[in-house]
């Protein structure tokens, strides 16, 4: 009885919403799409951080087509235009700070109490990926092979992957095994910095010598997708990933402080900031669980991911989408995501002068610290003319960081008294258009 009342109530809200929003558009119920058409999805996303930090404009388009029976070809192109400022790793201080730009020419000054941001970031990334899917062995198995290429002015990534899927149990169970290899090359502006070498006064040299560095990432994944009942689908994935090579961020430094937390004074051309250094290998494991459940009309999509690695970064991610069906195929979809991670073992907010040259690894990259990310969002999608869809999405992201004690740095004095880890707020606005061509 209770259930029924609730259902009736939802229905009326649904109808109102649908009436309010799509009265003008006639929607055909059935989408009879031929296999000889390209299925095109496109979107334009704007990502913007507050406090004049990073803004990204990202157009994306993907196309997929059935090429002969049960064979599919897909291609995706992403452009990513970045502008704005990004933290350079040094922390806020009670006194103004001057930094040299990565090129070694020119400098920028950060006021007292402000968190140092490097505003030289203007980057455009182009990423292209393609995949081919087809049956293999028999009707119960498929293979997907793919390749991807991503290019920015200081970075290049090349990758290949293969996924094997096999259905069992009346197609109620699918096992998958996947292998991916990526080879990345970084050629930083002003060359690769020497780990723990000082940032130098502009024009006096750079402590940057090697032109480029590279790393290799190998991913292995095993998964099970299971039909639980007529309305529920579940997926479990176990991922193993191994990276080796250069994993530093060549643009990140650490503030050098003494035991009282006071930043050192420049010595000659050496500024009191040193370049970070991370291990040259990393091995990660992920466990991923996802459930898609169909309610009377709506669909719940819930995912959880556990990530652990030998840098001591453990993280939990929960992601929930609720697809609220409106009339005529339109829907509203609230989204919540919560992420929390522990700090890398070598993460520190700064480095003691006595530890420079002693500590093997240290990084003040905020992304390696203890943090949480909370996202809430809403998507609205509206089908029209039978097989086209228009969508809008807005998301709000807040990232909060913790002050973490470390063996190689200190939170005493100046560092401890500053708001060195202010929250980061960002929003995403996206419009999407899908059609057949």
């Amino acid at each position, binding site marked *: 009885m209770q259930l029924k009342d609730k259902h009736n109530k939802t229905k009326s809200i649904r109808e109102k919403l649908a009436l309010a929003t799509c009265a003008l558009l006639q929607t055909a*119920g*059935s989408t*009879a799409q031929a296999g000889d058409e390209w299925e095109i999805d496109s979107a334009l996303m704007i990502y913007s951080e507050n406090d004049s930090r990073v803004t990204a404009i990202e157009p994306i388009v993907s196309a997929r087509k059935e090429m002969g*029976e049960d064979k599919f070809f897909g291609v995706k192109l992403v452009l990513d235009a970045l502008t704005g400022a990004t933290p350079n790793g040094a922390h806020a201080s009670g006194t103004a700070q001057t930094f040299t730009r990565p090129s070694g020419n020119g400098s920028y000054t950060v006021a007292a109490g402000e968190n140092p941001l490097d505003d030289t970031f203007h980057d455009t990334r182009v990423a292209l990926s393609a995949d081919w899917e087809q049956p293999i062995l028999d009707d119960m198995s498929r293979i997907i092979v793919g390749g991807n290429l991503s290019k920015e002015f200081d970075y290049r990534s090349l990758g290949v992957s293969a996924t094997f899927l096999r259905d069992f*149990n*009346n*197609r109620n169970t699918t096992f998958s095994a996947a292998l991916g290899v990526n080879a990345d090359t970084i050629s930083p502006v002003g060359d690769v910095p020497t780990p723990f070498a000082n940032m130098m006064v502009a024009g006096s040299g750079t402590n940057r010598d090697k032109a480029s560095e590279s790393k290799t990432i190998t991913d292995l994944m095993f998964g099970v997708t299971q039909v639980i009942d007529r309305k529920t689908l579940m997926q479990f994935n176990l991922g193993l990933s191994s990276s080796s090579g250069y994993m530093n961020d060549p643009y990140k430094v650490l503030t050098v402080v003494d035991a009282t937390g006071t930043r050192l004074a420049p010595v000659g051309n050496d500024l009191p900031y040193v370049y970070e250094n991370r291990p040259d290998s990393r091995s990660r494991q992920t466990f991923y669980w996802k459930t898609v459940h169909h309610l009377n009309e709506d669909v719940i999509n819930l995912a959880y991911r556990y990530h652990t690695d030998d840098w001591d970064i453990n993280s939990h991610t929960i992601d929930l989408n609720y697809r609220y069906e409106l009339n005529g195929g339109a829907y509203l979809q609230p989204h919540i995501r919560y992420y929390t991670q522990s700090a890398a073992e070598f993460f520190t907010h700064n480095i003691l002068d006595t530890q420079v040259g002693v500590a093997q690894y240290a990084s003040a990259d905020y992304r390696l610290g203890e943090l949480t990310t909370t996202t809430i969002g809403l998507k609205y999608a509206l089908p029209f003319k039978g097989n086209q869809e228009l969508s809008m999405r807005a998301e709000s992201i807040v990232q909060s960081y913790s002050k973490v004690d470390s063996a190689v740095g200190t939170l005493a004095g100046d560092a401890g008294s500053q708001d060195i880890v202010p929250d980061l707020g960002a929003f995403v606005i996206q419009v999407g258009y899908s059609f057949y061509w």
Partner: protein
Amino acid sequence: MKKLFIFITFCLLMNSAAIKAESVKVPDFKLPTATGEITPAQFKGKVLYVDFWASWCKPCKQSFPWLNQLQQQYKDQGLVVIAINLDKERALADKFLQIIPANFIVAFDPEGNSASSFKVKGMPSSYLIDRDGNVQGRHTGFREKDIARLEQSVAKLLQQ
């Protein structure tokens, strides 16, 4: 741990056992069509092509024009195509039939009992039944590459 494995093995065996044996006689059913109820018995002496389909099944959509053509071509030789719809809601089937009209018998089985007794393994599934009411062939799925073989077996059975 050992018990768990035995349990799993048991479950897996149960599942595979359920889809193994093929009945020789055509399983009986009594289903409504737009013009009244049908049973296999009333088509004695005919060759039956029984097709299980649903509105949400993509290959089913592709199979309908071919089924129309098959019925048309072999009607005089005694072929009867019976397409059993397994949609939970009749309205969905009707909408499908409006877009892709069927020139053969369409029966409705929202409960899916007939599909159970035919041990349908995938969508669509088709069964060839000879003039004496024996199941002579089964096929799962509908792909272009299957068409020639399907048509051949229909023609062959009609000549027996």
